[in-house]
C-alpha cells in the first residue's frame, strides 16, 4: 500500500467510526511516514509496519470500559453548563465588539491613507497641508491600517479557537471525558507564522518611520512644531 492509499483508507475508516479530530490524528501518521521515509524505508514497508488502517482506526474508538471519567449527564451538570454558556456568550459579545471596533478603525485609516496619497478630499475631511507631507502621512496611515487589520485577523482566529475549545469542553463534561481537550490558544505555525510576523514588523516600522518623517516635513514647512495651529486645522 502506498502512503496515499494508506491515508485515504485510514481517513475513511475514522470517518466511518465517527472519530473526532481526524486531521489531528492523521498528522501523527504523516510525521511517522516522514521520519521513516527519510530513514530510507519504502512507503510499502512503512504502511505494512504501521498495521492495517481498519485496525488502527478501531483503536481510536473508545470502548465503554475505556472511559475513566463517569459520564455526568445529570441535571446539575446541565444547569451548570447552561450558566457557563451565558457567561461565555457575554464574553464573546464583548470580543465581537472589540473586533468590530478594530476592523472599523483599520478601514477608516485605510480610506484616510488613500485619500491623503491620491490628494482627493471628499467631503472636506482632509485639513489643508502641503502635498509632500500629506503623502508621507498617507503612507503611515496605510501602515497603521495594516497593523490593525493584522490584529483583527489574529483576534478572529483566537476567538474561533476558543469557541471550538469551549464546545469540546461542554462535550467532555457530558460524555465523561471521551475526547481530548482542545487548546484554548490559537497557534499559527510554520510559514504562516513567519509571514504574519514579518508583515506585522514591516507595517509597524512603516507606520512609525513615515509618521515621523511626515511630521518633520510638515513642521519644517509650517515653521512650527504645532503646524496645525499655523494652518488653522481645528478652528471652525
Amino acid at each position, binding site marked *: 500500500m502506498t502512503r496515499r492509499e494508506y491515508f485515504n483508507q485510514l481517513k475513511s475508516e475514522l470517518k466511518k467510526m465517527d472519530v473526532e479530530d481526524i486531521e489531528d*490524528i492523521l*498528522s*501523527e*501518521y504523516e*510525521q*511517522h511516514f*516522514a*521520519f521513516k521515509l527519510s530513514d530510507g524505508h519504502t512507503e510499502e514497508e*512503512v504502511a505494512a*509496519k*504501521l*498495521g492495517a488502517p481498519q*485496525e*488502527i482506526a478501531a*483503536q*481510536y474508538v*473508545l470502548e465503554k470500559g*475505556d472511559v*475513566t*471519567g463517569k459520564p455526568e449527564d445529570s441535571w446539575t451538570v446541565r444547569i451548570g453548563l447552561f450558566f457557563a454558556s451565558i457567561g461565555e456568550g457575554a464574553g464573546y459579545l464583548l470580543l465581537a465588539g472589540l473586533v468590530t471596533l478594530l476592523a472599523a478603525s483599520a478601514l477608516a485609516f485605510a480610506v484616510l491613507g488613500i485619500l491623503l496619497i491620491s490628494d482627493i478630499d471628499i467631503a472636506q475631511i482632509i485639513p489643508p497641508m502641503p502635498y509632500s507631507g500629506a503623502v508621507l502621512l498617507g503612507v503611515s496611515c496605510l501602515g497603521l491600517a495594516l497593523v490593525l487589520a493584522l490584529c483583527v485577523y489574529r483576534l478572529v482566529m483566537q476567538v474561533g479557537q476558543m469557541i471550538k475549545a469551549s464546545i469540546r469542553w461542554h462535550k*467532555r463534561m457530558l460524555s465523561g*471525558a*471521551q*475526547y*481530548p*481537550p482542545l487548546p484554548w490558544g490559537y*497557534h499559527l*505555525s*510554520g510559514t504562516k507564522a513567519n509571514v504574519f510576523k514579518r508583515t506585522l514588523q514591516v507595517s509597524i516600522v512603516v507606520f512609525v518611520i513615515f509618521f515621523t518623517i511626515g511630521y518633520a516635513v510638515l513642521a519644517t514647512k509650517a515653521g512650527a512644531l504645532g503646524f496645525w495651529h499655523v494652518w488653522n486645522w481645528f478652528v471652525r
Partner: protein
Amino acid sequence: MNIQYKKGVLELCVLSLLKKQDRYGYEISEYLSRHIDIADGTVYPILRKLKSDGLVTTYLSEESGGPPRKYYSLTLLGRSMYDKDCADYLAFAKIVGELLKEERYDKA
C-alpha cells in the same frame, strides 16, 4: 499477545518514557516497537487516550527545517497515576511470576 491485555501495559510504558522527559510521538513509537512486538501504529491511539484522560498534555515545538513536532508531556495527574500504577503492576507481576513458577515445579 492479547491486544486488550497489552494496551494497559503499553499505557504504563508510555507514561514511564514520558516521566524522564517530554518526547514526540514518533520517538515513543520507535522506542516501544524496538522493545515490544507491536504494530508501529498502535502507539498513537494510546497517546490520544492518555491525553483525553488528562494524564498527558501536548505542545507544538518548531523544528528548524521541518513541520512543528507535537511533544507529549506528563501532567501532575499523569505523574501520580504512573507512580501508583507502576507499584501496582510490579507487585502484581511478582505474584504472577511466583504462581507460574510453582506451576512449573508441580509439573516437573
